[in-house]
């Protein structure tokens, strides 16, 4: 295993849906302990790209390397096994189920022999409480429904779950788009924590401010292509904003509104 190889390295990734070209040559790398922000307006191909990384779609052509090895995922399960965990916009959390049941969904630890094999709920509850405590969410009772948590807390639970189950790369699909200010800062803080653990994070957003707060590098997508990748030290927040919106138009609107966009 080569420790220096990037966690994720995609080169010239192309994805067609019938006659629609969703991705026409996207290149991107993600390293350990790095937050890579993927920026782009609606229809830029962000969703297609992350779904390809997460094993939902198969690329039409291009190279996809995980830790230096070529991979070809056929299902989300494959991606998970390779250490790529995706926290989707719709959270992958089920509001009616308890925090514990959600946390271990699909990967429940069991004990006993069949037909008496059952979920080890004592351990599950303990781990859940432990992990929630670690990220600063006070879950009084891990049996309470996820629906009782706030949006930010839910997002953090989803991230904590991915980290607990050994993800090396976290793909976060617009984790802050539906959140208020306090909750956004809670999630951003947690993303920073995850980075310090040495995980690679792909942070998808169209809020440049959020991206600039935690990002190390920024890749801008437009019409299925990478416009470029920039280090934080190389680009200012305004430039990034303009790049993402495709330049001039936004500038004009911004001036019209007194520079408030």
């Amino acid at each position: 295993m080569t420790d220096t190889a990037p966690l994720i390295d995609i080169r010239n990734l192309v994805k067609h849906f019938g006659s629609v070209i969703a991705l026409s040559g996207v290149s991107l790398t993600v390293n350990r302990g790095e937050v890579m922000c993927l920026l782009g307006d609606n229809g830029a191909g962000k969703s297609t790209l992350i779904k390809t990384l997460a094993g939902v779609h198969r690329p039409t052509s291009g190279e996809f390397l995980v830790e230096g090895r070529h991979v070809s995922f056929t299902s989300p399960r494959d991606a998970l096994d390779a250490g790529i965990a995706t926290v989707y916009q719709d959270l992958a959390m089920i509001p009616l189920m308890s925090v514990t049941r959600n946390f271990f969904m699909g990967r429940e630890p069991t004990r006993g022999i069949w037909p008496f094999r059952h979920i080890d709920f004592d351990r599950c509850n303990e781990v859940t409480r432990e992990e929630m405590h670690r990220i600063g969410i006070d879950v009084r009772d891990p049996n309470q429904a996820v629906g009782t948590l706030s949006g930010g807390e839910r997002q953090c639970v989803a991230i904590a779950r991915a980290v607990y189950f050994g993800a090396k790369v976290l793909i976060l699909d617009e984790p802050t788009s539906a959140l208020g200010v306090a909750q956004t800062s809670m999630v951003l803080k947690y993303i920073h924590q995850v980075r310090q653990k040495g995980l690679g994070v792909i942070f998808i957003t169209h809020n440049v401010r959020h991206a600039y707060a935690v990002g190390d590098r920024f890749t801008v997508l437009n019409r299925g292509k990478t416009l470029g990748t920039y280090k934080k030290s190389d680009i200012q927040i305004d430039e990034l904003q303009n790049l993402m919106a495709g330049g001039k138009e936004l500038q004009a609107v911004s001036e019209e509104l007194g520079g408030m966009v």
Partner: protein
Amino acid sequence: MTDVSHPTAPVAPVPPGPTARPAQDERLKDVSLLTRIMRRPELGALAGLVLVTIFFLSTADASMFTLAGLMNILSPASQLGILAIAAALLMIGGEFDLSIGSMVAFAGLIFGSFLTLTGWPLLLAIAATFVVAALLGGLNGQIVIRTKLPSFIVTLAFLFILRGLSLVGLKWATGGSTQMRGIGDKAGEGFVRELFSGNALEGLFAWLAAHDVVGKFPNGTPMVTGVPVSILWFILFAAVATWILLRTRAGNWIFAAGGDPNAARNSGVPVDRVKTALFMLTACAAALVAILTVLDAGSTDSRRGFQKEFEAIIAAVIGGCLLTGGYGSAIGAFFGAIIFGMVSIGLTYTRFDSDWFQVFLGAMLLLAVLFNNFIRRKVTGER
């Protein structure tokens, strides 16, 4: 609990510092008993059962609450209950099966045919009936999954297809009749027969009667000779289903599949497999009811299980299942079915016209749905 979470805890007591974590048990106490009870989906059904019991205790003839009366109530309740528990599991998994009533008739025909036409031994006929039912249930499930049509429509189609096939098949098998007789004689006697028909625990009841615990006739035979086997199947099924739902992986997957299939799939839950298995289970539950009732009656007819699909779904809803899936309980359906049995039989012990039953049915369903929605909002803090 605390010992496990603090494996390195020193023997000497540690002075409580500002960094010490609050004890876990202390935090758990914050959940009031009331909240924990409210969180149980079967609460409504249990409350309903208490209300209905009080109603009949005050209006019905005292004989309703004798041992014989209870067996009278539980017998139909158990047949419905087996269907209701399966329907509840399927509903929690996010799907409906409107074809279970017709499946009872069809499985009855299949079972009867295996015994009378091909002359198979009872055990083989029972096994084959379950296999056919499971295949049909699997077909239902696959159609729902592959076409992504609502299961309501797909199984509504099968409600008519299977009922029609039962009619046509019965006429074909019997040469024009819609009733197939003589199944009981072909079934023979023996251990397998006793598992699926008649009374169980007869020894126990004889012993109880001998010791004057239960009523007996002057000649010494107990008034209630045993528990109908269907009641035991009902209780066993309820217990197993509850355990599966609350304690196993499969149970967690059922909740997940019904709660949000996309989220479940993203988390690695094999949603399609779970749903197919649930459809097979409901079909097999219908087959079990068919076998139990056909062996008891000794014959089968095309109207067997008529409208049972609705009653089963109502019992499941009374038992706390949400129509949208992802929430509910098997033990709730158990209570729901007993409420059903109690009212349908109980009205004959009162001076009320027993046709009030239907009115009750609808009212109870409406109340249960309103109550469940209210509770769910309370418990999950839906905003």
